[in-house]
């Protein structure tokens, strides 16, 4: 799973360190059930890169993100990363019965997150700290999951539909947060149907790699 070139750079540290991808996929093919979703996908993201992943419903965006995270195994090819990965998807990972503040505190404590109050302020979650997570609206849950993601302090962000359910102001905030993350040397892979307003945004259209509709042997 670890990037092979980190070893390479260790042995040759007097020379210039070769550009090491923070997140990469080589000749990747993924399947869901017995159907091949896409194949021959090669993707390399360096530190500071943001990449917009597009494609119709069911084409495999979520599967790709989960494969990049190492949660599911690729059907063929390889994926890898250097550093740590944080994942945001449609599930918050927060206990629905707990008040939001305590549910987030579990992850903040686990991750050793700093300046959590400023983070909650920025995501406009301070006033919701006493509200149980299950009473939050879709957009509020999404913002809460963003707080968990940022608190993790990972250098790679995998965002699966981060804008869905958010109001316009919050959508702008997400773009701002991603831009800031990448500005500080972070990497982001973002699957979204909405256009993203980010500088130096790379883009991958998953349609180009879509496999023909046939069943696997």
């Amino acid at each position: 799973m670890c990037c092979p070139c980190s070893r390479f750079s260790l042995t040759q540290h007097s020379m210039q360190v070769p550009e090491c991808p923070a997140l990469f996929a080589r000749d990747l093919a993924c399947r869901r059930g017995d159907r091949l979703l896409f194949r021959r996908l090669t993707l390399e993201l360096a530190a500071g890169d943001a990449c917009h992943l597009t494609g119709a419903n069911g084409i495999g965006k979520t599967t790709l993100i989960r494969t990049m995270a190492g949660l599911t195994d690729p059907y063929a090819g390889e994926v890898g990363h250097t550093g740590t990965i944080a994942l945001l998807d449609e599930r918050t990972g927060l206990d629905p019965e707990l008040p939001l503040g305590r549910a987030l505190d579990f992850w903040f404590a686990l991750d050793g997150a700093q300046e959590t109050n400023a983070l909650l302020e920025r995501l406009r979650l301070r006033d919701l700290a006493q509200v149980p997570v299950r009473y939050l609206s879709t957009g509020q849950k999404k913002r809460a999951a963003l707080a968990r993601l940022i608190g993790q302090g990972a250098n790679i962000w995998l965002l699966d539909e981060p804008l869905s359910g958010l109001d316009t102001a919050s959508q702008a905030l997400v773009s701002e947060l991603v831009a800031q993350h990448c500005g500080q040397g972070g990497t982001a892979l973002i699957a979204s149907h909405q256009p993203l307003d980010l500088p130096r945004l790379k883009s991958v259209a998953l349609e180009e790699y879509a496999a023909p509709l046939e069943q696997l042997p």
Partner: protein
Amino acid sequence: MMGRLLKRDLAQFFPFAGGGAGLPVLFFVAVAMLYPFAVGPDADTLSRTGGGVVWIAALLAAILPLDRLVARDIELGHFDQLRLRGVSEEAMMAVRMAAHWISFGPPLIIAAFPAAALLQLDGPTLHLVLIGLLAGTPGLAAIGLMIAALTASLRAGAALSGLMLIPLALPILIFGAGALARQDQASIGFVAAISLGLIAMAPFAAGAAVRAAR
């Protein structure tokens, strides 16, 4: 980190922490209460068969928490988030098994006192029931965890897990309740051995099941 996970899991499962987690213990006492109504108040019959009833009640009570033991955290994405932080599925399941046992084993052993009073068990029988439950409930927790993880992604998982637990728990029941009939502690050693084997196996089996459910 494991301490934090255990604390969080206990908050989810410990009796009366909310979410109906106290139900298994109430269910256990309710069965012990119903039995004299069903077979009559004859003290001799009750004390002769009561120990077995406590064991059956314990086995049935072990089924109740299974539907929320693993499936809920898969749906929440909790296990995925832990995986990204480098926690292995086996470690998650070992912690979960400990939390599951702590939240139903000791409360059940304490609830065995009122149950014994209702069933008019004598001192030596109660003694055997208590050490039997102490040796047997960790095994029940281990079986329960494996079944809960295996059935987590199934639609009828909750009903199925009850059906699956009963045959697998039979050895524990036979040796545990068998000690009562013969009034000797030897077969409780077997119960403890079965429990230890199951505890050693469960985190790996359940961990593999959680990985496969992704």
